[in-house]
Structures are given as C-alpha cells and as structure tokens.
C-alpha cells in the first residue's frame, strides 16, 4: 500500500491506514480500495478548478493524530445546546450514545452504528460507498478508508416524524486529530423527517474533520436537513453531502456555516427520478480570517424536476467566502426548473467573496435562472436609517441582519433557527463593534 503513497504529504495518511487495516475485519478490502483511490488522487494540484479559491496547503502541511478504527479514548465533548430531545452524538468519529442507538430514538427512525448494520447483513458497498467525481472525491475516499464508525439512519417508509433528530458531530481533545465521521441517511418511501446535522468542536485544537454524508430519499419522501456548522475556530472541516432524490421526493437543506478556520462543503443533489425536488439554502459568515467554501451542485436527471438554490454570504475582516453553484440539466430532464441565486455582502474592505453560478443545460424545454451579486451595505439605506436617529452601528446591524434574514426566515425549525440566530447575533455584534 505504501507504494501508492506518492509524496510526503500523504505519508501520515498511509501510516494511519496501515494502523487501521488490521482492525477493520471484513471491510478491509473495501477500505483498501478506497485508500488506493485517495492515494491516487492525492491533495488538489495548485490549478485544480474545483479548488480554485481554496488552498489546502495549510491543511496539507499539518500532521494529525489518528485514533484508529479501534476507537478513541474518552474525551470531553464540547457543550452542545439540545436542539431536540432526540440526539445522537458522534465524538471523534465514534457514536457515543450506544444506548440511544440500540433503542429507537424516535418513532419511525432507526439509528445504527456501522458494525450493527454490518452484523445485520447490510452490504459494505452501501455503507462505505465512495462517490465519483467532484473536488472532494479524494476526501470521501479517505473517509471510507479511515472512518472508525458510521451512523446509519433509516426513516421507515410512510413514517411522518415531526420531532427532529439532532446529530452532533463533535471534534474533541487537545491534540490535533483527524476525524472521519460518516453518515448514511435513508428516507423511506413516503416518509417525512427532519434531521439536524450539527458540527461542534473546541476552539483550542486544530482538528481535521473530514465528513461524508450519504443521503437517499426514496419516492415521495420529504427530508429536511438542518446543518449547523459551528466547528471550532481553528478547525479544518471538509464535508461532502451526496443526496439522491427519488420520484416526487424532496430534499430541503438549510445550511448555516458559522465556524471552523477553513471549511469546504460540497453539497450535491441528484434529482434522479421524475418530479424530484431540492431546495438548498444557506448562509455563511466568513469573519476574522475564516475561509468558507460552499460548492452546491444539482443534477437534474429526470423530467419535471425542480431545484432552488439560494445562498447568502457575509465576509468581514480578512475573511473569505467562496460560493460555487452549478445546475446541470441533463438531456432527459425536460420541463425542469432550476433557480439559483447567490448574494454576498462585504462588510469591510479586506474581506473577499468569490461567487460563480454555473448552468449547464442539455434539455430544451426547461426554465433556468441564476444570478449572483456581491456588494456592500447600501449607502442610501444607511443614510435613511441614520437620518431617523439610528447610529451608524445600529444602522449597519439592522441592514446586515436584514440581509441574513432573507435566508434565516426560511428556517422552519425553531430550535435550529434560534441557535443560528444566537451565534450570528453575538458574532455580528462583535463585528460591528470593530468595523463601525
């Protein structure tokens, strides 16, 4: 295996895999293949189009400890507000609340670990799937090779689960550690469920969280994912979410990117059968020297599919935001709708946001639109508010919140939107203090 590790940057990952392979039992072959794929792809080359605005040089140079598939020692999990009374916690890649997992946490939702799913005869291929293509294929492969556990969430067919399931993905410990959390979410036919995907971590350590989330929504399913990325301030976070959406099914993703030092999200929705729909909205706040990159891609593969992508970004200080939105309407996707907007707000002169909406259309009877704007707060609106007695800081705050509010107001889960608001409010207050 080491022969495939072409350069020094990959060597520690090779060593980690060597440590793992003996302990992974029956999945060894699948993992070996996955690692080979990672080794083949390596870290992105300097001119890799998928990483045009995001350099991984800093990540590449870091060395991380690896707990191995055998499991991490006990660590203090960062405190997390309960966004639901039904919670699954994954600390450093390992599910910690085994009791909760064994019993059904919620009527209609079943949660298992990787080993439980394997014991029950689930095929390895599904549990450790490696997707093809995209800038994060390498990391999804690395995840499949090194993941020390997985959370397998199944929503029963026709189940309608009102209470959200709160999945906490935590990076813990003082030593910089690489963590490969893995989630498989399957929404059965005709089901409806809400899942909160919550990244947390300590601000003190430089962890590397490389997460992979595989989502399948069967026919007529309604799946709502609420992502709250509040990873620790020094963390590297790479996450890939691949969602395959079946006939007349819909996936709705709300994404709030508020944490980490460097984060990249690849959110891919495949509208695979007629009438499938995706609504992907997000907000990122790239303040301090935070670098947040969102790549959102929707593939329309069947007739009458609909997608709406609406991301808003705020950057301040030396923060940098990247948004790449791509809708591909394939030849069989007649009478489909693809709408995409990216709006961005620069609060200070040193901040930067690069946005690139893309459309590829191979069907002729479709409705597609896209638009992207990047600007500062409207001086006319600022003056209007100040002329009514609001000071500059209040006026900037009101306009910034109004900008974010367009996305926040769609977040239809009170505990989640409350958590997003409180983080955002605190950060904006601090920001406006230093920029007004």
């Amino acid at each position, binding site marked *: 295996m080491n022969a495939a590790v072409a350069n020094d940057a990959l060597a520690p990952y090779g060593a980690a895999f060597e440590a793992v392979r003996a302990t992974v039992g029956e999945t060894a072959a699948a993992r070996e293949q996955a690692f080979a794929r990672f080794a083949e792809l390596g870290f992105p080359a300097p001119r890799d189009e998928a990483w045009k605005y995001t350099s991984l040089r800093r990540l590449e140079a870091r060395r991380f400890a690896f707990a191995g598939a055998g499991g991490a020692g006990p660590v203090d999990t960062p405190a997390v507000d309960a966004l639901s009374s039904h919670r699954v916690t994954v600390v450093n890649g390992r599910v910690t609340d085994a009791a909760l997992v064994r019993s059904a946490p919620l009527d209609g939702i079943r949660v298992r670990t990787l080993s439980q799913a394997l014991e029950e005869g689930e095929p390895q291929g599904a549990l450790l799937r490696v997707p093809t293509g995209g800038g994060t294929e390498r990391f999804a492969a690395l995840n499949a090779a090194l993941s020390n556990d997985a959370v397998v969430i199944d929503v029963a067919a026709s189940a309608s689960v009102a209470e959200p399931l709160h999945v906490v993905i935590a990076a813990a410990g003082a030593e910089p550690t690489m963590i490969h959390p893995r989630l498989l979410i399957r929404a059965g036919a005709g089901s409806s469920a809400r899942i909160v995907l919550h990244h947390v971590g300590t601000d003190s350590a430089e962890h590397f969280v490389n997460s992979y989330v595989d989502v399948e929504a069967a026919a007529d399913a309604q799946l709502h994912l609420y992502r709250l990325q509040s990873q620790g301030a020094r963390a590297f976070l790479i996450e890939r979410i691949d969602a395959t959406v079946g006939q007349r099914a819909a996936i709705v993703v709300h994404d709030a990117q508020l944490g980490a030092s460097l984060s990249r999200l690849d959110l891919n929705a495949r509208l695979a059968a007629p009438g499938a729909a995706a609504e992907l909205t997000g907000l990122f706040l790239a303040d301090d020297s935070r670098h947040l990159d969102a790549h959102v891609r929707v593939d329309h593969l069947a007739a009458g599919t609909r997608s709406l992508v609406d991301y808003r970004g705020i950057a301040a200080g030396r923060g940098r935001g990247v948004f790449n939105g791509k809708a591909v309407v394939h030849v069989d996707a007649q009478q489909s709708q693809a709408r995409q907007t990216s709006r961005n707000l620069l609060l200070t002169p040193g901040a930067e946001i690069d946005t690139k909406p893309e459309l590829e259309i191979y069907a002729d009877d479709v409705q597609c639109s896209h638009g992207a704007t990047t600007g500062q707060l409207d001086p006319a*609106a600022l003056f209007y508010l*100040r002329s*009514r*007695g609001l*000071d500059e800081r209040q*006026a900037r705050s*009101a*306009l910034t919140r109004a*900008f974010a509010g367009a996305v926040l107001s769609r977040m239809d889960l009170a505990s989640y939107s409350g958590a997003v608001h409180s983080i955002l409010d605190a950060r904006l207050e601090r920001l406006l203090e230093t920029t007004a």
Partner: protein
Amino acid sequence: MLSIRNLHARIGNRTILKGIDLEVRPGEVHAIMGPNGSGKSTLASVLAGRAGYEVTQGTVEYLGQDLLAMEPEERARAGVFLAFQYPVEIPGVNNAYLLKAALNAVRKQRGEPELDAFEFLALVRDKMKLMQMDESFLNRGVNEGFSGGEKKRNEILQMAVLEPKLALLDETDSGLDIDALRVVANGVNSLRGPERAIVMVTHYQRLLDYIEPDVVHVLSDGRILKSGDKSLALELEKRGYDWVRQEARVA
C-alpha cells in the same frame, strides 16, 4: 431656530448652492420653491447630512449648534427630520423596528424614558389613524413594495411619531394624487405648533393650498432670489419663474 448664512455646496466639481441665506424661527412654515435643478433638494440634503455634498462656504446654525458638524443621527436626535423625496426601500428591516428604534433614540436624547411595547403601539396606532394607514404596514419592510403615495405617507407618519423641532419636507407632494395629498397635508398640519418649524421644498404651488406657508422663497441657480408671503406662491403659479430671475438680474 435655523440660521443659514452664505451657504455654498457642491457635488464633485459642480457647485449647486451659491450663497443661501435663510432664517427660520420656531412656529414658522417656510416654502422654498424653484424650478428643477435650482438646488432645492440639495439644500434639504445638506441640512440632513447626506454624504456626497461638500460645503465650501457658509454656516448653518441650528438651536445654537453648528449643524454641519453633526452626524446625520445627531441631527435627527436633536430634532431635525427630513421627509425624503424618494424614500428608500429597505426589505428585511421592518417598519415597527425602525419607528421604535428612531423614537427611542430621540427620546433618549430628550432625557425621556424608552417606551415599552404597549405604549409604543398605542402611540403608533394613533398616528397611523391620522395618516390613514393600515396597521399591517408596521410589519412590512420599510417602504418595501409601497406605492409612491404610501411611501410619502410613511414619511409623514415617522415625522408624526418623532415630533421633530425642524421638519424638512423634500418634494413631499410629488407623485401624490389629490386624496393622498390631503392626507399628507393633514398630517403635516397636525404638527404645526409654536415650537416647531417646517421647511417645505416644492416645485408646485399645489401643496401650499393645503399647507399654508408663512414665508415663500424662490430659489434659482443656488440662490434665494426673492422672499415674500403666500401671495408670492400664487404669483409664481400664474407667471412662472422667469420674471423673478429677470427681476433679480435687473437688481
């Protein structure tokens, strides 16, 4: 209350105000009339503190303070209110929030306690009735999707809530039909009082049928050419502005 002396202002290299002198006392209503491009709106903007204008000469004293040295919000808190010619639409900032934040900023300056939600709502409801505005406006974004007339009414509503000492109305009559004009004028008239001064900038005499001025000024090419009582406005309506300019040239 307001004392403008030899005020010169420019935008970029273009000088717009070329020596304005104006004295406004408490209780007075002044109308500043003039053709398009005469500098009426610039004067209102400079008084409210809009960025982009450079005052090159002259002074403006408001209640004994140097108005030009104050930030826009300081002017507002000191009782200066500008009703905009083109009120800005601000989606996502709701009307109720703005009214409350503005009112509390002004009250704080006046040494009055902040209003609680109940007192605030009672006050605003009262003023909305005066402006014939539906309460649903409170929960909408500031001027968002408002018609021209609704925007102007909203301006006067804000003015009625904030009770300024000096109200500057910039072309408040423009774009209003006769019914809306009556409502707006009624709102302005309800604020007339011995402690308050109103300066209206307008192109047409029409507004003055509803809000009777004490003094009328003719502004042309950045200067006040003539001042008189309300009969001057009627004369302008009949004869246009050219005779004033000719008279000024002769003098």
